[in-house]
C-alpha cells in the first residue's frame, strides 16, 4: 500500500455536550475512539494519516470542561480552557504566575487561542522519527530510530531513556508539577485524581503512551492547591524560534523563602526525558540553604548527575544545569 500524507481521512465526528455523553461515547468506542481537545496534536496525526480512528470525540461543546473556578483550596481549571485564557486569567496571573508564563510561551498566539491546557499536557511525543510515521517502539515496533549510530537526535532525551528516547514536549506540564497540581480523570466507572507528577509516564511503564490516561478515560480538570500561591516562581523555555516551537529544555520552579533561606522548593525540568522531571534530590539539597549563586550552581551540577548525551544533544546537559541554576537563583530570563 502506498503512503500519502496531508489529507484528513474519514471518521465519524461526535460533539457531545456533556461529560456524561462524552464518557458514554468513549466507553462505546473503546480503543478506537480518539479524544480531541483543541486539535493541535490531533490534526497532525490525522492529516498525516499516520494514526487513524473510527470516531473522534470532540469536546469543545462541553461547557463544564471550560473555565477557571475558585475552589475552597485553590483553583480548578477545566481541561478545555484555552492556553490564552490560562495565560491571561487574573487569578492565575496573581497566584500562579508560573503557569501563566508557561502557557504564554507555548507555540504561537494562534495556537494558544485554539490549544487547551488539557491538550497541552496530554499531547503525544514530538520525536521526529515517530511523528514521520516510522515504525518505532512507541509506534508498536521494535527499534528506536532516534538512537542509532546515524540518528539525528538533537531534541531527544538525556535522562531516563528506556529503549525510546523521545521527550515530553509540554511547557505547562513542568509548571503544573511544580504547583503540586492534581489531574481529575473521569470514566464511565467514576472519577479518580492523580498527582500531576504521576500523570506522566515513561517508556518503562508504557512505551506507547506519555500519560496515565487509558481508553475510556477523560481528563476533565486540573486542580491547583493554594499551597504555592504567590511563591517565588521561575519559568524559562529555550527554543530555536519564537513561533511554533517546542522546548529544547524548559524549567519551572516554585520556592518559599524565609528571609533569604529556602524553606521549600519545587524544581521541574521538561524536554530532557519522556516525562517532566521533578528534581527531588535537588529540592532536598537546597531546602534550608540560603538562596545564593553558590547554592544555585551546586544544585545545577547535582541536577545533571546521571545525564547521558546522545550523538547530537550534548548541549542539553549544560543547558539543563544552567536552567536549574537560574530557576533557583531566580533572576528573570533576558532572552527566551
Amino acid at each position: 500500500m502506498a503512503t500519502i500524507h496531508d489529507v484528513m481521512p474519514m471518521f465519524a465526528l461526535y460533539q457531545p455536550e456533556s461529560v456524561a455523553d462524552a464518557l458514554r461515547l468513549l466507553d462505546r468506542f473503546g480503543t478506537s475512539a480518539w479524544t480531541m481537545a483543541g486539535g493541535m496534536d490531533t490534526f497532525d496525526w490525522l492529516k498525516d494519516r499516520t494514526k487513524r480512528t473510527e470516531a473522534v470525540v470532540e469536546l469543545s461543546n462541553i461547557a463544564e470542561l471550560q473555565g477557571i473556578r475558585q475552589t475552597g483550596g485553590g483553583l480548578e481549571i477545566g481541561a478545555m480552557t484555552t492556553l490564552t485564557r490560562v495565560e491571561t486569567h487574573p487569578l492565575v496571573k496573581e497566584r500562579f504566575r508560573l503557569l501563566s508564563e508557561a502557557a504564554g510561551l507555548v507555540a504561537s498566539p494562534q495556537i494558544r487561542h485554539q490549544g487547551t491546557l488539557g491538550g497541552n499536557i496530554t499531547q503525544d511525543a514530538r520525536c521526529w522519527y515517530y511523528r514521520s510515521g516510522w515504525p518505532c517502539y512507541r509506534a508498536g515496533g521494535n527499534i528506536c530510530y532516534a538512537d542509532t549510530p546515524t540518528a539525528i537526535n538533537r531534541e531527544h532525551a538525556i535522562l531516563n531513556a528506556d529503549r525510546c528516547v523521545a521527550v515530553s514536549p509540554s511547557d505547562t506540564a513542568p509548571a503544573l508539577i511544580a504547583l503540586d497540581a492534581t489531574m481529575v480523570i473521569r470514566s464511565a466507572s467514576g472519577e479518580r485524581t492523580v498527582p500531576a507528577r504521576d500523570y506522566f509516564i515513561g517508556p518503562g511503564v508504557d512505551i506507547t503512551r506519555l500519560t496515565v490516561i487509558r481508553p475510556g478515560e477523560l481528563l476533565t480538570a486540573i486542580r491547583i492547591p493554594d499551597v504555592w500561591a504567590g511563591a517565588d516562581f521561575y519559568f524559562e523555555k529555550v527554543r530555536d524560534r519564537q513561533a511554533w516551537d517546542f522546548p529544547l529544555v524548559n524549567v519551572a520552579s516554585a520556592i518559599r523563602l524565609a528571609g533569604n533561606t529556602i524553606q521549600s522548593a519545587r524544581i521541574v525540568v521538561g524536554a530532557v526525558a519522556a516525562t517532566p522531571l521533578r528534581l527531588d534530590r535537588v529540592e532536598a539539597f537546597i531546602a534550608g540553604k540560603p538562596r545564593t549563586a553558590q547554592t544555585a550552581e551546586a544544585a545545577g551540577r547535582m541536577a545533571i548527575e546521571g545525564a547521558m548525551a546522545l550523538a547530537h544533544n550534548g548541549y542539553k546537559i549544560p543547558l539543563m544545569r544552567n536552567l536549574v541554576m537560574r530557576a533557583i537563583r531566580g533572576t528573570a530570563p533576558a532572552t527566551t
Partner: protein
Amino acid sequence: MATKLVGRNYTTPDLKAKVTGRAKYAEDFRVDGMLFAKLLLSQRPHARVTRIDMDDALAMPGVKAILTEQDLPAVVEGANLGEGIIASTLSERGLTNEPMYVGEPILAVAAVDELTATEAIEKIHIEYEALPFVTDPLESLRPGSPNARTQGNVWVRPAATPPQPGQPPAPPPQPKVQEWKWTDADFAAAGPDKLPLGKTPDEWTYGDVDAAMANADLVLDETFVGANTSHQPLETRSAMAYWLNGKLYMHCSTQSTMRTIGAVARWVGVEPKDVVIISEYTGGGFGSKGSGAVFYVIPALLSKKANAPVMMRVTRDDEQFIGRARPAFHSRIKAGFRKDGKLLALDGLVIVDNGPYDPVSDSRSGGDHISLANQPEAMRWRMLTVLTNTPPRGAQRAPGGMQGNGLMSPLLAKAARTLGIDEVQIHRINAPEGRASFGPPNAQGRRPFATSAFVKQAIDKGAELFKWEERKARSGRREGTTVRGVGMALSTYSAGSLGFDGLVIIKPDGRLQIQSGIGNLGTESVFDCHRVAAEILDIPWEKVDIVFGNTSKHVPNTCGQGGSQTTHAMTRAAHAAGMAAKQNLQKLAAHVLGGKPESYDVANERVFQKGGGRGMSLADAAKKAIELGGAFDGHELPKTISAFTRTSATNLAGLGLMGVARDEYGREGSSKSYVAGFAEVEVDVETGAYRVLDYLAVADVGTVIHPRNLAAQVNGGVMLGLGHAIGQHWVYDKHYGAPVTRRFYQTKPPTLLDAPRLQAVALDIPDPQTPVGARGVGEAPVGAGFGAVVNAIAAAVGDNVFRRAPVTADVILEALEAGRPMKDALTANI
C-alpha cells in the same frame, strides 16, 4: 524626469482584493466537471520502480485516470526546446519510474474529489528495486562511496571547443553527470574539521593568487558549511488545467506570467501559441516558481487523459519535497589580507549540494558576487556541483550570492578582529566603487564590470544611522548573563536585464491601458514599473488601467520575474512605450493641427503646442488615432518589437492611440545592486539563546520607484537571510536517506515574532546606465541579512563558536562550554 508618480507611495490596485480575500489564487478557481489530482510520492531515496499495480485504484468509483511517467512527452536528447533549453534525459520531468529522492512523485491520480484520489493512492501497490543513494555531498566524494545517480555524482561541463576562424563560437557543451571522487589522501590532509581540497571539475581565476597570498600579512583558512533551506512560499505550487479548442488553459502559481508560457509548452509538449497562463495572484515564489513548476505537466496531461479539468492542490507535505530549496555550500576559503584590511588574495573551494537533477548555478554566482562585494586583488574559485538523493534545488532569492556573501561575512569580521581594524572599515576598504570589476575574465581576457557602485556611501550612511560607534562601544561587554554584539555585512546581486517591450494604449475615454506581462508575485513590480509610462504621459494614476495575470489578454514580451531583473528591465520597457506613445501623440497633433511634432508637448491629459496654442485632449487624440489608423492605433507596428509583442499589439490595434516599443537604450556593464546591513543581537551566555534586536539595511539600488514597496522588499530579503542565520534547516537521517524535518516546527523558518526592529533605507542615486535610473532590489539584501546577524553573534561571544549555519542556542552553548566549536563541522543536514 518629473516625479508625480515615480518615487512616491501609492496603493497598488490589487491591495483590497488581497486583504479582503477576493483575490483568486490558482487553487481558488472552479470549473464544471473539475477533477482533483493527488500525488503518489516515493518513500525511497533512490530506486527503480519494477511494477505498479493500479487495478484496485482504477476499480474505485470516482477514479478517472492515473498518470505515470509513460504519459509524459518523450525526451529527445539534445533537442533545442527554445528559450535556451536543450533537452536532456537527465532532467526532471515531474513523474518518474526511477525516484531519486524521498518525496519524488511517481504517479498522479485524478478523481472526483481529493479523498477518493487519496484513498486510490493507498490502494496502489508499487514494487521497487533499491539503488545506491547518498544524502551528503561530501560523503559522495569519498572513494568507493555511492553515487546519487547511476551515471555518477558530479555535474561536469566539458571544455568548449575553440571557435574555428570565421565561424561563430559553438554553443557551450551541455553539462554531464559523471563519477568524481576525491582520494583518501585528500581527506587525510584536511583532518576532521577542514573541508578537503580535492580536484574540482570547474574553476576560474584572475591575478596571481599565490604571489598575492605570499604578500599577505594575515592569512585565514576557514571552513564553513551552510544549510539547505526550502523556499516554502505560503501558496504551494498548485495548478488547475483544462483544454479548450486545442489550447491548454493553465491556472497556476508562478512568478512570471508571460515567461511561463514557454516552460509549460515544453513540459507538456505543445506549441507556446497553444498555452494560456492565468495567474492573477501568486503567494510567493522566492525563485522557486520562476516560470512555474515542472509539476504543472501533471494537471495538464491528466486533464487530457481524463477529458476533464483537473485541479492539483499541492499540500504542505508535498511542497516540502517538490517545492525546491536553496543548496547548501560546503566551503573552504583561504584569504590573505594586508595589515590595513585590504583583501589581497582569495582562494576558495565550494561544494554545492545540488540534489539529483539539473545543475543549479549557485557555485559560479557565489564566486562572482564574492569578487564583486569584496574586490580581492587576485582570486581563484574552485567549484563542484555534487548530486545527492535529496529534493531538487532551485534558484532561491540571491542564488549563490547569498551563500557566497554569507560565508565571507564571518571571515571578514574575523580578519578585522585579528588585525585590530573596525568591521565597518574592513568592509569599506574592500567595497566596490564605480564600474567595479567582478568574476573571471571572458574569452577576450576582459573582466565584466558593474554599471555603478555607491557602496561606500551606503556603508557610511548605515554606520551613521545605526550609530555603529556607539553600539560598538558596548558590543561584547557582558551584563549579567547577557552580552550584546554588533555586526555588519555587505551583499550584492544581479539587478537587471534589458531589451524587452512595453505596450500601452490611450483609450477614447482618455484612460491609459497598460498591458503587463509581469507576474503578480508579491513584489508589486507588476504595477510599479508601469508608473514610468504614466509619468511620461502625465496621466494621473487614477486614470490608468493595468491588464495583467492572463496571457490571452495580449501582453508584451516581458522578462522573467527572477534574478531581480524586473524593475530594471520593465521600467526601461515602460519608458520606451511611454516615449513611443508620447511621440505618437506629437505626430498626431502635428498631422491634425499643423506644425512639427517636436513643437508639441504632452501634459495634463492634453497634447498641445509648446508655449500655448492649439491642442487636444488625450481622449480626442485617441479617437483621432483610431480614425487615422496606421501607426497611430497599432495597425502599423515598429519592426524592432518581438514577434510575441507583435501578435499582442496586432490583436489590440484600433482600440486607441498605441505606444509600443522595445527597450533599445543599451547599457555598459552589468546591473548590480548592493545592500549594507547592520545588526545588533543579545546573547544569553548561560543558555546560548539570543534575539536579534535591531537591523538596519542601506540599499544602493538606483532610483527608488515605490519607497514603501522598496522597504518591504529589503526587509523581506533581510528576514530570509536572518532565517538562514538563526534556525532554518533540513535534517536527514543519512542511513535511511530520509528527512525527519517536514513541518514548520521542524524546519524552523523565521516568523514575524523573530523579527528585530527593521529599518530599510535607500541611497536613491540613479544608475547611470538606464534611463529611469532604477535597478532590482529583490535579491541583494539576503546575504547581508545573514551576514550581519552571524557577525553580531561572533562579536558577542567570539569567533571561536560557530563554523556552520544556522547558529542556534545549542551551537553557542556547547562552544562556550568547551572553548571551541563543537557542532560537527562537515556533515550535511544535521
